[in-house]
């Protein structure tokens, strides 16, 4: 049920494009205005979110330590899981961002007979990695539309991605991985009891959107064969700020473009901002050196305490009887 509304929302978006482009001929709106608006919302929104987090203080030094601390010289510290300096933090962050290291540790808790067991459960990690990396590859491949002559690294990635050399045009491996990963991420939300229990409609919406983007892309490339030259002309017009309507590209392209625009515009206002947030997480990006270097809380203020003098006033006679030294007899 929770999946239905987000599904209908994506269907509605698709119908909107068909109506707008095919029926009403609003090429300028869908080909120029919407992408520009989406890019603006994305950029401004993302900057706004990151700046907002960045401006919020980190009053305390709270890294989550996942390895041996640096203490005595003869005890080997774990400089990555429990970094004591910037170098370790950088490695820790890189491992998180590129390899999802924490997610890799995932284990499934089960009761087997008398014992709780913790079986290694890499599926979420695997599908997460598959999804994000294929997404990244696909984004990079798309850069071919943004440059007059395709940059060499982009060509290299295209080459690598189509190395299987299946079919004409050659199948991109990341297309398959992307759709499969998104499908798996969807399936786990409707089948795994614990994941089902925490899923909100807002978790389905980006998945359907991504699937829609991937599916329309695949359709364009392998089946309907849109006019790639026309697409490049349109995109180049957009990036060079001389937008022009290009005719004869085909509605499927406008569906693709509109869903992408929606994703971008939606990004800063949804959980997708984790892409920026992960870098600012104080449990991960601080080194464990709070006993070596003083961490300052910018909003620290004086508090009311119960002073020693007040304490001694309360207990002076009892202290003297017990032989505890006092300040004032």
């Amino acid at each position: 049920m929770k999946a239905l509304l987000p599904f209908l929302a994506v269907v509605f978006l698709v119908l909107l494009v068909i109506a707008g482009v095919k029926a009403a001929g609003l090429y300028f709106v869908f080909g120029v205005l919407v992408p520009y608006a989406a890019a603006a919302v994305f950029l401004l929104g993302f900057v706004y979110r990151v700046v907002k987090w960045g401006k919020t203080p980190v009053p305390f030094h709270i890294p989550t330590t996942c390895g041996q601390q640096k203490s005595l010289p003869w005890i080997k510290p774990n400089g990555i899981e429990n970094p004591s300096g910037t170098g370790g933090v950088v490695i820790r962050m890189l491992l998180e961002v590129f390899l999802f290291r924490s997610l890799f540790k995932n284990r499934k808790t089960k009761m087997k007979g008398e014992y709780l067991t913790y079986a290694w459960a890499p599926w979420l990690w695997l599908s997460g990695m598959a999804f994000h990396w294929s997404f990244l590859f696909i984004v990079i491949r798309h850069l071919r539309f943004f440059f007059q002559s395709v940059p060499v690294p982009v060509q290299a990635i295209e080459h690598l991605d189509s190395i299987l050399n299946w079919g004409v045009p050659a199948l991109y491996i990341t297309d398959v991985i992307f759709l499969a990963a998104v499908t798996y991420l969807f399936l786990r939300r409707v089948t795994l009891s614990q994941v089902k229990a925490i899923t909100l409609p807002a978790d389905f919406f980006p998945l359907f959107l991504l699937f829609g983007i991937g599916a329309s892309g695949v359709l364009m490339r392998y089946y309907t064969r849109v006019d790639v030259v026309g697409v490049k002309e349109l995109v180049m017009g957009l990036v060079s700020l001389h937008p022009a309507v290009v005719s004869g590209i085909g509605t499927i392209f406008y569906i693709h473009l509109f869903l992408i625009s929606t994703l971008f515009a939606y990004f800063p206002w949804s959980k997708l901002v984790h892409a920026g947030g992960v870098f600012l997480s104080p449990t991960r990006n601080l080194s464990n050196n709070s006993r070596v270097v003083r961490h300052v809380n910018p909003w620290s203020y004086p508090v009311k305490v119960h002073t020693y003098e007040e304490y001694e006033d309360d207990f002076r006679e009892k202290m003297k009887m017990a032989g505890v030294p006092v300040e004032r007899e």
Partner: protein
Amino acid sequence: MAKEPKKEELLQSISYKAPKTFWMDTPTEIKPGMFCWGAKAKSLNVVGLPNARDWNPTEEDWKLPENWQEILIEGLRERLDKYRSLRLFLDICVRCGACADKCHFYIGTGDPKNMPVVRGELMRSVYRKYFTTPGKVFGKLAGAREMDLQVLKEWWTYFFQCTECRRCSVFCPYGIDHAEITIAGRELLNLLGLNIEWIQGPVSNCYMKGNHLGLEPQTIVSNVEFMVDDIETLTGIRINPTFNRKGAEILFVTPSGDLFADPGTYTCMGYLMLFHELGLDYTWSTYASEGGNFGFFTSNEMAKRLNAKIYAEAKRLGVKWILGGECGHMWRLVHQYMDTWNGPADFLEVPKSPITGTVFENARTTKMTHIIEFTADLMKHGKLKLDPSRNDHLKVTFHDSCNTSRGMGVFEEPRFVLKNICRNFYEMPRETIKEQTFCCGSGSGLNAGEDMELRLRGGLARANAVKYVHDKHDVNMLANICAIDRASLTTSMNYWVPGVTVAGVHELVANALVMKGEKKRETDLRGEPLPSAEEEISVEARAVAQAEGEKLGGEANV
């Protein structure tokens, strides 16, 4: 105290299959055995916290101020602007579910609201409603909801079913730490006078009398005297500890639980014996007589108010540095908060062991060293005469406390010490130790009597791993470096794994410590007869046992 559930019934009641109803549509029940009594007016008044009145969580009317919603929402707004952790963690969770089954309360209850992610959603749903555009526009569809009385009761119930152990944060791809959510949640509840008495009582005690238990100076002295007498009976040596002594080199601070009841008192005897043997120039303080800090389970401000005594007393007494006893949350606060709250402690010197000359560079600014670091250093330098055979009647495993693990990373020091003082040491499965350790089930001020069922459920995951080494290797001693563990794991073991006792590492150190001029020891610190020398385990047998211990992690990893 609520009735203890039967072990089998309790186990059978746990299912990890989520119920049909979505958690947001499931009303919260405040069940006997699963909650703690509300803070009393007099305890709240001592420290001047708002809405002081006597109230009963099971009654409909919580006697809240007229504008409680406004207070709460404004309180949340203030904290969102003060804590990046809170704002960020509320914003970026993708509900991937990696943390869901990592919480000992979820493992022990199967209640979806004890999944860390849902604990976050309890607050996140309200955050969406009042602070985000999608939440304001789309409401429930965007996972947003009003702050009403039902939600408030849900917050209260589940923010007091989290021990701020940070295990969830280890597994989250963004390091989302639900302890941060719970800390903020409890701060907000405290704006409405909704603390629990088991926390508020110790807080007001600590504020006025210097320690959670409310021990007055003469009681502290006499409790230590009792221990000194016991030590004399055991060793023939008379120890003369000092209190509030100006000019001592070191101030020693430990949780007051160590002064009060066994098995903590045995650990405390261990400190006394060790310090005496070293001839350490140190003093106790009756004013800074608490290392722990239940203020932290109330609000950041309260924690700072209670913590202030430690540096203030070090300054007054003119000591050079501070040595801290075995405690979990005390050490997270000393390590990650104390200097920020009440520093800089520029009137102190960088801790230096007077015995080995080691300078504790890792405490350069805080000027406070953990006793396990101190003792490990002594042993490494061979400064202690030890007879590990005096612990041969014990088969020992080690429980890593949440706070020293995930808020510090103290793993090898206690293991090094243990391997020097006992010859039968077995690790619990890898997924339940070190950074993945499980909470005792009673941390963060939840170690009351009335919430016993909650504590036993929360303690299941830890206890189950102990059971594993108990069944496999006859482990009968659960060592740890935390005062709350010593009390709460004793309860948990009695229920889940009878036959396993609980001790602070320094109790076992003192068992093995050969003191100058001591008489032949007949018993250990608890009065248990010592094993005779003939029964000594051969070196080979020990090696085999250790090798098996190392394999364990793999075996349990089904």
